[in-house]
């Protein structure tokens, strides 16, 4: 597998480590139902078959957390971007 790192370019997947589904927002710790929200945040995943957005760390590379758009049915990777607006800005 090769993963396009938005900073380094396409690299072997061996350089990356996988975290999981992206797009999760860490709940407001002061919300009245924070505990329930944290439970969902930690444990509940869509586990979609098909196009997904995943968080990967370019661990053996530039150490950027990136979002990779991947089709779990075909392994096709259709894009990637920095997970952080900060990293994105710093990369420009």
């Amino acid at each position, binding site marked *: 597998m090769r993963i396009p790192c938005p900073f380094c370019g396409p690299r072997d997947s061996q*350089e990356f480590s996988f975290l999981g589904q992206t797009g999760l927002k860490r709940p407001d710790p002061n919300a009245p139902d924070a505990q329930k929200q944290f439970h969902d945040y930690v444990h509940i995943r869509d586990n979609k078959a098909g196009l997904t957005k995943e968080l990967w760390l370019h661990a*053996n*590379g530039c150490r950027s957390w990136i979002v990779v758009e991947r089709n779990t049915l075909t392994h096709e990777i259709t894009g990637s971007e920095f997970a952080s607006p900060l990293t*994105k800005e*710093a990369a420009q």
Partner: protein
Amino acid sequence: MADLSLSPRSALAPFLHAGHHGAEGKTGVKLREVTACALAELTAFKGQKAALIKSTQNAFGVALPAANKSVSKDGVTFISVSPGKWLVTGEGAAEHDLVERLENAAGSLAAVVNQSDARAVVEISGDKARSALAKGVMIDLDPAAFKTGDAATSFAVQFWITLWQTNDAPTYRLAIFRSMGRDLLHWLESSAAEFGYDIHG
């Protein structure tokens, strides 16, 4: 207290054996440890990258390089390693004041961390350097893809590496965690053996 003086030792000193090794009668690869070289990491603070570029341009006479690039001037080399982060090497006169100069240039724009002792830096050159490196380096080092001044952080064999090309000989430099120096050398030596290699002390 005079009897308790500390003498420094380079990362690979205990493991390097100068001379010719591997296949007889040919030297496809030359290896040496880069000592007398200061290293530092320079990390721009939030939103300060542009200012940092300007400030280091004034102090060092070069612009901080973009992704996958390095630039050198007067013994100082800036190597892009992460968004907003550079590995900086200083040799010659720059060996001794690199960190200080960086701190002065960075001011409150960036974090400067002395890494002079954190890495083992090896220089690999020769017409078979590329073939030897290809036995572990996963990125494309063909001149069509990687040229003098190009740089990368990547994974080779089992090491997190920073790799940059310093001339067309070709000559490459490879920096890895100091504690893995012995293993790095072992890999480089076994990879270069079929081409014959010299180790320069």
